[in-house]
């Protein structure tokens, strides 16, 4: 450790997963040919007016509640002015001094230590367009213009990159579980700006720099490391930190000055006159609160403490809300938690991967899954036969019982039939039998294999093992 403390705060922009844009009916779909998802409103034609999309307010409030914020009953939009070609109105409609959500927090664990990160505010605003630089000209694509965003501003509570990384992971999970944002970093749905300063213990905070363009969690963590070290070098070398805005170059692994304090912007904020203030009733807020799902951290706690699953299982099950819901519903239908977890982490994950499917595409209903596990626990089919049944269930919409019956997959537990097969295998494999009797106890597994093969997998393996041991005494 050195003599410096690092102080970090984040501003995270998340695109909301609404169907239409914040002030018009255009689609929010990513991509599309240049300027095909536009209308007079989002391209800033003279005379147009914004109509606030109610879903945007709802999603922001939902995110705020999930992040433990107070919801502002009276909120307003403001215009933030600057000239840039990606901003067709020359102002971004945002929120200034009356944001929708205030004073929240997220609990994280980083480096084994629990830590609470404060959320200062969350507000709604519109995204800007994109500049496309060509050899001799620059074009503007307004498709992204007016896509709704929430900006989440944290308190300067972070001390290191591990905390930043853990927070971003936790935030992403919460936004995914609340279905507020799809959080696709590669599509720019989640973007992060980092404010960072250093100071010696007992001294006031140092001058902060702001880093933009952090498009992945690892980029954010790397940029934090780099900037914290850079500032230490500057201060130790007797220099002063200037209040710059820096741009992170992820490939090169360093940042460079985008603009310095001298040309710091003035935004001429003023209340948006075309949008009426948002007055949210208690009832409205409570209705949204009721739609909140159980959040992933809570689910993990329940899986471990109530269901007795290992933390490893709990982590994997909660990577996707769909899978976690699938798990809970299968358990609710009567299945053993650990058995469900094993199948999800094993066969289901494998089958999804082989087919290149997203978790939401699991073609099996929780009831059917529970039925399958029931067949296994009752000894109707073996565990390994269960894997085959699941594979068939990925292709056909039949109940596990029907599959087992139609294909004659039921386990044979008839002692007489199994004894006959065992006697035949012993007779046909004198060498293995000799090995076994000569002390190679493991040789019996080869005999079990032979019996299983003979029964086309249907013989109850435990019984086979037991009978073979008896016969070879």
């Amino acid at each position, binding site marked *: 450790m050195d003599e410096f403390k690092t102080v970090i705060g984040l501003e995270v922009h998340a695109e909301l997963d609404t169907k239409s844009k914040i002030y018009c009916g255009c689609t929010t779909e990513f991509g599309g040919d240049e300027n095909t998802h536009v209308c*007079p409103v989002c*391209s*800033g*034609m*003279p*005379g*147009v*007016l*914004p*109509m*606030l999309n109610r879903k945007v307010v709802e999603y922001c409030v939902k995110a705020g509640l999930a992040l433990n914020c107070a919801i502002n009953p009276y909120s307003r939009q403001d*215009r933030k*002015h600057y*000239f840039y*070609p990606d901003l*067709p*109105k*020359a*102002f971004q409609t945002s929120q200034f001094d009356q944001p929708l959500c205030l004073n929240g927090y997220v609990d994280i664990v980083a480096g084994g230590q629990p830590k609470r990160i404060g959320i200062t505010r969350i507000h709604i605003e519109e995204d800007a367009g994109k500049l496309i630089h060509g050899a001799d000209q620059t074009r*503007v694509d307004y498709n992204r213009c007016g896509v709704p965003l929430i900006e989440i501003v944290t308190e300067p509570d972070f001390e290191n990159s591990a905390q930043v990384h853990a927070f971003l992971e936790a935030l992403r999970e919460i936004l995914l579980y609340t279905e507020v944002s799809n959080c696709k970093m590669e599509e720019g749905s989640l973007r992060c700006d980092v404010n960072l300063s250093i100071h010696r213990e007992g001294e006031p905070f140092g001058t902060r720099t702001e880093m933009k363009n952090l498009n992945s969690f690892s980029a954010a963590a790397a940029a934090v490391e780099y900037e914290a070290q850079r500032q230490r070098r500057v201060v130790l070398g007797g220099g002063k930190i200037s209040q710059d805005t820096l741009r992170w170059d992820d490939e090169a692994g360093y940042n460079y000055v985008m603009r310095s304090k001298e040309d710091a912007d*003035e935004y*001429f*904020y*003023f209340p948006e*006159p*075309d*949008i*009426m203030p948002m007055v949210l009733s208690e009832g409205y807020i409570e209705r949204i609160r009721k739609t909140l799902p159980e959040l992933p951290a809570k689910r993990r706690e329940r899986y471990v403490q109530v269901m007795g699953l290992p933390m490893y299982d709990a982590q994997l099950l909660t990577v996707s809300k769909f899978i976690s819901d699938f798990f809970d519903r299968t358990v609710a239908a009567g299945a053993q938690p650990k058995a469900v977890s094993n199948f999800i982490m094993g066969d289901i994950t494998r089958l999804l991967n082989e087919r290149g499917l997203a978790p939401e595409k699991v073609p099996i209903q929780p009831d059917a899954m529970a039925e399958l596990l029931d067949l296994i626990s009752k000894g109707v089919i073996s565990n390994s036969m269960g894997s085959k049944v699941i594979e068939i269930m990925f292709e056909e919409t039949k109940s596990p019982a029907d599959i087992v019956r139609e294909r004659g997959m039921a386990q044979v537990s008839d002692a007489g039939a199994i004894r006959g097969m065992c006697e035949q295998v012993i007779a046909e494999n004198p060498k293995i039998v000799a090995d076994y009797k000569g002390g190679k106890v493991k040789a019996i597994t080869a005999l079990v294999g032979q019996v299983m093969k003979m029964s086309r997998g249907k013989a109850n393996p435990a019984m086979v093992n037991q009978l073979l041991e008896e016969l070879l005494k």
Partner: protein
Amino acid sequence: MNQSISAAEELAALTAHDASCRLAEGTVSSVQLTQLMLDRIAASQNNAFITVNPKALEEAAAADARRQKGEARGPLDGIPMALKDNISTQGLRTTCASRMLAEFVPPYSATVARRLSEAGCVLLGKLNMDEFAMGSTSENSYFGPVRNPRDPQRIAGGSSGGSAAAVAENLAYFTLGSDTGGSVRQPAAMCGVMGMKPTYGRISRYGVVAFASSLDQIGPITKDAQDCALVLNAIAGKDPYDGSSLMNPLPDYLDALKDGAAGLRIGIPKEYMGEGISEEVRMAVERVAGLLEAQGAIVETCSLPRTEYALSAYYVISSAEACSNLGRYDGVKYGYRTQAYANLAEMIEKTRSEGFGDEVKRRILLGTYTLSAGYFDAYYKRAQQARTLIMEDFRKVFRQYDVLLTPTSPVTAWALGQKHANPLEIYAMDVCTVSVNVAGLPALSLPCGTDSQGLPIGAQFIANTLGEAVLLRAAAAAEKGGKA
């Protein structure tokens, strides 16, 4: 003078409702009316029009065809009209009288343009104005000043000067203007026609190029109260594209015309009749009061003590909003772009320097100043506080009165170029009209005679929120009294 010319004069001078009767009787066609207007527009020297609609006759023929099939759409079907050139019309250039938008053709139509078109109106063209509606004289136009048809050496008033002049010269049966601080009422007064600024939110602003969003409102300019009611019936009401448009149910405004003045409580705020108001204007307004009193109205003097703050509050708020609304004219997407530039910043700077006229730049600078960090509280915030006080004043007097009566403009039309040297002197002329916009109220300017030079004088009625019907009732009664 031969008979056919005077017959044409008579036809052109008809009110919209009389023209509508002729169309219904079949004694004239929309094509005839439209051709008549187009001929008069071509012959006019007063520069009321910026653009003539090349499809006007086509629209008129369509209206005639509907009528022949018995499918006429209503009282305005086939009536030729024109729109102020800050009202977007799809496919027809909408310039705001600015070099910035001199070639701009909108990809969509304003809600009011669409509603009039759906009512069957024929669009004759787009009307001259002060650039971006900033001004009170219609001299701040890239396309040259509008001349007052009553005296072409004088201003037509502004900013909807073309809209008022066109009606006064019988170049259109009615027009629409926009009113941010008096821009419909004052030119109507100066040209001797009727102009109404409805309650903020009564008529959709969608597609009206924004000057000051919290003050702008579209209004009809007509030859009488009945026409005003007809046009209001066609354009007022909730618009899903304008979040500030009001949901309140719409009355049939024609009903209000019959009620007469008996029992109407009229207040004359003393602050509007004092210093700065010309003697002839004051007398004309008092004559209107007398006419209504004779019909049984109760007329009393009242007071709006915060009136003195209105002008400053208005110029602070309107300039702040204008500076924000006009940021989009940067040469990137549409409109004028400077010829030569080295980089983006220079392109935007030169485009705006060359594309905007002096008055627009003055307002942008004023707005930028008042919104700057450190000045916001001293100007914009205080202006908003003044706004609240002014609204309170009105709320109080409307407990006692149905309608207020004031002059529309303190003076009659002045000579073109006369006040160029001193913008503040021109700003001061808005003193009777701006409070209404600041408070979001409806008001109407009624022609009420002429001064000794034969120049029109306007009397203004102001009503409480959504009191358009009361305005029309008072105006119709005064018209009747004037004729009797």
